[in-house]
């Protein structure tokens, strides 16, 4: 603890009175990791700015869809380099790139976080089912996860996306969003990505539950008469959750990455919407005239990926400092979305 030398008496007295809980300790360890803190701050800023961008006119002073071939003084307004009015320049139709970037970042974050929410819900419930259900349930779920690992992710995502495209199923719908604020283009991408990616978390949870099942304190809880639900909630879940938190931090950028890859190969979200990937794939057509159109979203994606990676590394070390060395020897199985 770096604080210890600075102010020993305060720390000591607090320790005598109450030892901080495991989460508080992890939080302290995370805070002493400078890279992770900086990444967390940057991510928060990006998220806040992109959310504000869709609600206020301070950060987003132009309409992202407004085309302006000439500005107020009548000079050409297309493909401008960064200036005071258009912070990041304008594109070939005179649209403000800063405004479009905000819109796209917000959309990409929504895809990343939305898909991860579905993945976590699916992964945890199926993982619990496999770990706690009977042997037959376990075998079926493991068989499904094995299959999903053998099937190249991007093939599956493309197929599922094409299957869902243009359908009028209960919640999808082609026209106005049937769930307010969730356009079908977003929902479709989220479903396609999460159908493929829940497997990792499911395996993780199953493994954790199986290994915790035989632990003495779990046995003791059961012997003391705790109900199965209480054993799960109080004794097993808190111990199983930290690898899941780490997996979530690495999962969000992977989803953003998956969507951006889709957009890059021409299967992205349709025009009224824009994600960072679709901005890049649009910009690629104008690489010779205005390369900024590609450079800005590329930098944004790289920034997001880097920050999530650092934050994930920091969280991993903070949540489980003991097995840090073991883990480092086996970091990262192969990347999944390519």
């Amino acid at each position: 603890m770096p604080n210890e030398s600075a102010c020993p008496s305060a720390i000591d007295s607090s320790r005598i009175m109450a030892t901080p809980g495991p989460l508080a300790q992890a939080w302290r360890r995370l805070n002493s990791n400078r890279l992770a803190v900086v990444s967390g701050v940057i991510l928060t800023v990006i998220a806040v700015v992109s959310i504000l961008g869709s609600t206020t006119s301070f950060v987003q002073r132009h309409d992202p869809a407004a085309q302006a071939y000439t500005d107020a003084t009548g000079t050409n307004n297309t493909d401008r380099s960064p200036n005071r009015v258009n912070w990041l320049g304008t594109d070939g139709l005179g649209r403000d790139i800063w405004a479009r970037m905000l819109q796209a970042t917000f959309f990409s974050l929504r895809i990343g976080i939305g898909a991860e929410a579905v993945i976590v819900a699916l992964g945890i419930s199926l993982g619990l089912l496999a770990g706690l259900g009977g042997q037959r349930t376990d075998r079926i779920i493991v068989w499904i996860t094995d299959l999903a690992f053998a099937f190249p992710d991007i093939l599956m995502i493309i197929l599922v996306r094409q299957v869902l495209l243009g359908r009028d199923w209960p919640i999808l719908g082609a026209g106005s969003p049937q769930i307010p604020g969730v356009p079908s283009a977003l929902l479709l991408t989220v479903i396609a990505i999460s159908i493929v990616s829940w497997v990792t978390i499911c395996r993780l949870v199953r493994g954790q539950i199986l290994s915790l099942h035989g632990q003495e304190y779990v046995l003791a809880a059961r012997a003391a008469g705790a109900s199965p639900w209480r054993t799960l909630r109080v004794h097993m879940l808190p111990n199983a959750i930290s690898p899941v938190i780490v997996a979530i931090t690495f999962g969000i950028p992977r989803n953003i990455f998956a969507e951006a890859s889709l957009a890059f190969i021409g299967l992205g979200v349709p025009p009224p919407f824009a994600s960072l990937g679709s901005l890049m794939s649009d910009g690629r057509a104008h690489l010779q005239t205005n390369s900024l159109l590609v450079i800005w979203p590329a930098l944004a994606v790289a920034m997001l990926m880097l920050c999530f990676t650092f934050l994930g590394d920091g969280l991993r070390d903070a949540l489980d400092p003991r097995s840090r060395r073991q883990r480092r020897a086996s970091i990262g199985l192969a990347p999944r979305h390519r």
Partner: protein
Amino acid sequence: MTSYVLRRVMLMAPLVVTMVTITFLLMHAIEGGPFDTDRPLPPATQQRLQERYGLDKPLLQQYGLYLFRLAQFDLGISFASDRPVRDVIGERMLPTVQLGLTAFVFAVICGVGLGTLSALNQNGAWDFAGVFIATVGSALPSFILAPLLVIAFVLRLHWFDVLGWEFGNYHKMTLPTIAAGVLPMAFLSRITRAALLDVLNQDYIRTARAKGLSEFRVVVRHASRNAMIPILTVAGLLFAHSLTGSFIVEQAFAIPGIGKEFIDSVLVRDYGVMMGLTVTYTLIYALMTLVVDVLYAVVDPRIRY
């Protein structure tokens, strides 16, 4: 060992059948058929086309027929080009495999080299540089790297060509190789560093040094063997990834490989090619996992099957 490999090879058959079933279902669930055009074809023509490719039969029968033909290694006919799917895939496979192999070799040489350099200079300047490159590299997936490389080296510096692929022509090979190879390189270098550090801290390495062996001998003869196991796992999976091709790099540099072919086939509902490619992908993955598992036993004599 032989019986283990044989059993694994036999298990590939049900895997392929399951994959074929899933793809078949999804493929037919996609709206529109292969012969839907903006201006509808005359019904008689439509009818004849359907008959020619066996699409007029009930789905179940089509499915059965496909499996039956697959058992004889017949992948059917591509609707888009009216040629056997096997020929189409074989032709498209070549640039993908060439690109994959070049990128893989690049990734292994640079990644393992960088990781070793880092591990041998733990916490030194080289280590910092290596870890920095690996971290930045893992945040630069090919779809970011490819356009940035094109902007820098083609549009500004005019060093290379933008499009296409020609084995042996470095003007066309350099950029796709880098774009496809940086991510696996970053992964390999992280793994190599971690694995080597782990081994270098063990007692038998201290013994080797105490015997007065040269540092080179200690690293190459004693440490590298045990560091191989995690590296091999990752490298095997990365190799499978490379062989199945990068959809993105092929798209970015207009390389006519199987990744691009798959996307095209989905867009025009070329059922034969879609199914053929799924089978190919599944087999490559299954074979690579098998090869990795066998290599384990070769590298680590404690593992027996």
